[in-house]
């Protein structure tokens, strides 16, 4: 039971950082040497490299309609961060499921299969769960079968399906999320990994059991993940002083919590903290080694 550790980039966070339009125009003593070709994307690329260098397995990119699109960001940083998996978050309303599958195939081919899909659900949209289910059915269908036919509520395909060399590319692992029974039901049928928010271990176990029951009934396997803000510092006091959001404490204390989640069955951890580059280094350098050492000891003991 390997533990997968991801960093999460939020394109809307720290909006001034790397943004050419936010540079002070006047009253500035140092000579300005930054050109127009230095952009916010240089910052995104650095977050990705920070995650790769410090030993994260992958990078989630949050869906923020008012900021840069997650799929553009994921692709733009992919070639500069070898081996890092890239998981853009996006809703199922982006367009055709066939087209999404085709874009995914090209991304997989270009990056040695490093893509994941985190489908964002919208609880305010009544049809959303049904659309996600159909979106994934069609995307997986054209991806894995030829000819593939489908006529549903949202999508219709005739004689679909990819031919070599676009065929036989691994379909991206699908991450879904949500805490209620409907979300768990959807994941039982359509997700590869279900992501929970970080909650206390008892509630997490309870929801995980519900998911397991639904998954068993659907004759599938769904892994469990947790998404968490992290505030890690050298001491517990400093972490509390830094705002103490999310999983907060000394490096050892944060590692304890992550190991406890893993012991409770969590195999995917999606971590984030502002500011993204500095904290990726901090957590990657000081927390992940503790987690890795102890989870591999767990595996050996098991």
């Amino acid at each position: 039971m390997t533990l997968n550790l991801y960093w999460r980039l939020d394109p809307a966070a720290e909006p001034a950082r790397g943004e050419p339009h936010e540079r002070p125009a006047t009253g500035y003593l140092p000579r300005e040497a930054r050109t127009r070709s230095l952009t916010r994307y240089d910052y995104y690329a650095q977050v990705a490299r920070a995650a790769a260098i410090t030993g994260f397995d992958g990078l989630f990119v949050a869906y923020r309609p008012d900021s840069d699109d997650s799929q553009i960001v994921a692709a733009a940083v992919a070639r500069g961060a070898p081996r890092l998996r890239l998981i853009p978050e996006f809703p199922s309303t982006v367009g055709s499921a066939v087209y999404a599958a085709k874009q995914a195939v090209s991304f997989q081919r270009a990056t040695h299969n490093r893509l994941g899909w985190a489908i964002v659900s919208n609880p305010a949209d009544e049809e959303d769960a049904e659309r996600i289910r159909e979106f994934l059915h069609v995307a997986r269908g054209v991806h894995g079968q030829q000819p593939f036919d489908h006529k549903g509520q949202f999508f219709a395909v005739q004689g679909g399906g990819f031919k070599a060399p676009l065929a036989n590319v691994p379909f991206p692992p699908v991450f879904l999320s949500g805490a209620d029974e409907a979300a768990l039901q959807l994941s039982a049928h359509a997700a590869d990994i279900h992501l929970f928010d970080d909650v206390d271990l008892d509630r997490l176990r309870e929801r995980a059991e519900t998911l397991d029951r639904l998954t068993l009934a659907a004759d599938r396997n769904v892994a469990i993940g947790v998404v968490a803000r992290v505030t890690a510092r050298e001491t517990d006091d400093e972490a509390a002083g830094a705002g103490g959001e999310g999983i907060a404490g000394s490096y050892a204390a944060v590692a304890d919590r992550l190991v406890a989640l893993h012991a409770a069955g969590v195999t995917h951890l999606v971590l984030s903290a502002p500011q993204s580059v500095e904290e990726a280094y901090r957590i990657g350098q000081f927390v992940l080694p503790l987690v890795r050492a102890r989870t591999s000891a767990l595996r050996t003991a098991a």
Partner: protein
Amino acid sequence: MSIDFYWRLPTHGCHSTIRHGSYDRGDWSPLAPGNQTPGLTAEGEDDGFRYIDHLAEIAKAAELSGFIGGLIPSFPNTDDPWAISPLLARETETFRFMIAFQPGFLDPVHAARLSASLQRATGGRTVFNIITGGGGPSQLWWGDDFTHDDRYGRTTEFLDVFRGVWSGQPFDYQGLFYQVEGERLSPLLAREEVPEIWFSGSSDAALQSAAKHADYYLSWLEPYEQLTDKFARVKQRTAELGGEQKCAIRVDLVARPTEEEAWRDVRIGFENVTDETRAQWRGQPTDSIGASRQAALRPTEAKRWDDLIVGKNLWGGFNLLRGGPSLGIVGSYEQCAEQLDELIGRGADAFILAGTPHLEEAYRIGEEVLPLLGRTAAKQFLLEAAE
């Protein structure tokens, strides 16, 4: 006056020479010794390169040798331009990504956000080649069962919404195909320029849509008189409809130091065409008017390579040598430049050029043909005629 020259990124593999039809660059043929991206190590294992690495080299060659960007085609069996463009954004500097795109693929508001983000990633290097025609089984393959004229209606509405939300103000729209309420791009995204839009399609439904939204009308190369008439008609009709249209041509070249060398490569290429290839290109079903015009040349039935010479330095058998349009230009560097000059005289404002192999020919045409433009006899003749 300056002319925009684009190159083409072959998104379905490439041949190492126009003389042979084997796709030995990319993985559209089984991995074998001699293939590239992916290739084989000395030990006979996958060398880890991927086709995107080859596309990166072509894009770099094109921008180094003077092309403003490249068309990235989209067909069922190609890699996808929306995946390729952001992947290559950070390793190119001036190369414009001309994304071939069918409006039915993406929600228009999402497409606007994607485009603005790509503009930010590239410093404004996104261009759209909007494809509306096509039809036949491939449309159903894409999950699109719209009829020909409905598709142009949808394209118009798609671009209405795409531009509407780009204003940055809350935008409402009640169309037949799209309805939006209060949607907009954020100030961060709306600050970017709307991508230039290239359009094709010769039917009146297409021209109505183009007049409203397109910057360039794109045509495959056709016999020159026909093309001159078409450009004149497009410019006139779109002007009547209140638009202004520049015209562009997509054409392959075989340019060599001498005319003999150019025709020799074409002849060898023709002689190596297999029956299988002929069968593959024979009678491809489509309801695109432009494609039907090209098919009228019937190169699949030709017995001799020179039966397909349809004019000075014009050869009508290119679709036998690689997928795509049949008519192309063959000649010395000087002659190729003359043909392009003549097309400029006939109303072309921009070009998408291509040559096989795409990497090496980007350098050759960029270095040998483009610098001759505006200096050839054809151009001098036109200048004199204008006086």
